[in-house]
């Protein structure tokens, strides 16, 4: 095997890992705070991609410029879904919450099929497209940008959770629901804000990949299954666990792609996943008491 191909695989895996990170970190935020497994996460990503698509088609602007629009739109959608729907069943058994988020996902996905048809679309970009070459190595420009954006976004999110009072309230509520309630944190609002932020982050992931990925109502599934694996791998509720877990999975997947063939490329990911569950059930970066 050519070393060039291996290095190329590590690079593209790392870049893809950045995109996975953004999906997984936001999924983990929702899980960490509300203990809700959000099956609608992939659908939020898809909605973010469509917002970007329509904004760039109608306004004729570069998809990156629609980032704030798709993020705010998804923040509002996420906030309302949490406020109006999920808050009602937040104390219900977990499988009921699961059914609700799955139901929301099915509804939104089919709505997208109805509104926009299952046709594949792609945002046509001319600037910041293509690839940079260093010797025989290729760095896809939009992927490098997506990776950078994912890194920035993760850092921002981290600072937000650590430094701002809203972030502190989110953390407080994730540590002790009752206690937070007692000291006057408005639980329903904070839940809704956290869910909205999660949705906005995954919308950002959607926006960042539109220059190199196709858009279709079922596109979220491509990423979100992997994101679930990452979240468990990194440790449920662990912020940096999700981030580094994503990079590990990205690299494992692309090395699997060149060393094994076809669907076997998933084998390294799931091997790591199973080993983690066996040897370190709380995840690579998980705390003892999640």
């Amino acid at each position, binding site marked *: 095997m050519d070393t060039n191909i291996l290095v190329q695989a590590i690079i593209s895996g790392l870049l893809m890992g950045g995109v996975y990170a953004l999906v997984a970190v936001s999924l983990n935020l929702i899980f960490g705070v509300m203990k809700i497994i959000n099956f609608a996460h992939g659908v939020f990503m898809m909605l973010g991609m469509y917002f970007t698509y329509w904004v760039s088609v109608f306004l004729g602007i570069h998809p990156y410029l629609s980032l704030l629009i798709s993020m705010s739109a998804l923040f509002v959608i996420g906030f309302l879904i949490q406020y109006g729907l999920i808050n009602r069943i937040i104390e219900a058994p977990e499988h009921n919450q699961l059914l609700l988020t799955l139901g929301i996902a099915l509804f939104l996905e089919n709505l997208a099929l109805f509104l926009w048809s299952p046709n594949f679309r792609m945002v046509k970009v001319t600037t910041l497209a293509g690839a940079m070459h260093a010797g025989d190595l*290729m760095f896809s420009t939009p992927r490098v940008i997506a990776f950078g954006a994912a890194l920035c976004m993760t850092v921002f999110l981290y600072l937000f959770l650590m430094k701002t009072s809203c972030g502190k309230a989110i953390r407080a509520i994730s540590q002790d629901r009752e206690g937070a309630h007692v000291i006057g944190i408005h639980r329903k609002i904070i839940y809704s804000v956290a869910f909205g932020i999660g949705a906005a982050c995954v919308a950002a992931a959607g926006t960042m990949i539109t220059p190199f990925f196709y858009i279709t109502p079922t596109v979220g599934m491509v*990423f979100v299954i992997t994101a679930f694996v990452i979240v468990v791998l990194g440790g449920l509720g662990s912020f940096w666990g999700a981030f580094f877990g994503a990079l590990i999975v990205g690299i494992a997947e692309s090395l699997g792609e060149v060393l094994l063939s076809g*669907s076997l490329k998933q084998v390294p990911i799931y091997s790591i996943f199973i080993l983690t569950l066996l040897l370190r059930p709380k995840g690579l970066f998980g705390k003892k008491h999640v």
Partner: protein
Amino acid sequence: MKKRVKREVNRREFIKGMGALGAAVTFSGFPRLAHSAEEVKFGVVEPLTGPLAPLGLSDRRGYEQAVDEINAAGGIKSLGGARLRIMLGDSEGKPEVGMAETEKHIQRGAVAVMGAFQSAVVFATTQVAEKYKTPFIVGVGVAESITQRGFKYTFRPIATDAWHIRDEYEYLAYIQKKKGVKIKTIGIFYEDTLWGQSSAKAWKKLAAEKGYSIVADLPYPHATSDVTGVISKLKAANPDVAMTVAYISDAILVTKTMKDLDFNTQAIIGMGGGHQDDAYIRTIGKLAEYVSVCENWENDLKIPGVKEANENFLKRNGVEMDCVASMCYTCVYVLKDALERAVSTDRERLRDALAKTHLKPGEKGNIQPSSIIFEEAGQNKDARTVIAQIQNGKRRSIFPPEFAASTPIWPMPKWKDRK
């Protein structure tokens, strides 16, 4: 108050009526086949709802156009101008539903049934038709084994999946002769479910027979997030020609990655699926240029009737005729031809007439690029495919040369030489 009108038939009237009817039958002969107002019904079974609905719709348009054309031109002449009537059945994309629909059509008097888009459904529906001794004309459904079961009532005018691959190699032979180039190495990359795997097997078998060497054999999972690894391996192998089968999502991603990695080769030849989809060109625009695809039909073929059928289709539906619509269209004409020769709507006679079908390309509504002559098990032994290349944002037929509207651009320009 509503006035109730009693309309009873008393015995006297009944006897009178029957007497008149009896006299009519006696004097005019039994109103069997040669009656001008007669209708000949046939059934179609297509995925009209469900995920394949858009393609089922295309099939339906093909059938309906042929029926309308035939009826407007005077129906089935040997049956006294009997009109064709289509009975629609929805398979929902499921074999068991397809079977039920086929049975329903047959019980309602269909002389023949057509369909059913998916090979899995065709497998089931042809069994029902065989049981009821009713001809089944396969519109779309390319699995080779459909016509390897020795069925007497199954007829397939189009080429099987294996023949697509045979024709790809014929195209390579043609190019080498025409352009004076040497093609030795082939890279194959394919989605790794049944479709891709069986194609790969056929590619490898024929490559060995014809003296090509497969230098890259690269399966990939469908709907994956990244194909950089696959394409970098393909690039490292540097094949003269790359052949693939891909669904549209993967075809889009692969083509973009090829550009990013600056992968150049003499030709990229897809097979049906994603590369045959207009959305492939619409979605990636210029990146799709020069990519070739092996398919059953193209709407610019130089065959009598293609232009008219395509124009009529465009007028009726607002879109150009596609490959699957053309195949269904042809099936109706195959039925018409057989009915003319059978001079009967008896299914057994119709079967015998179908078995003796001999239609040249362009003859009596056969707009396919080959003659239609069924062998024992119902496969059209002359069936062949078309190779098209995307030129100026449209698929143009380039092979076989006798029907092609355009000529191959060979080799594909390198990425850096394109605008």
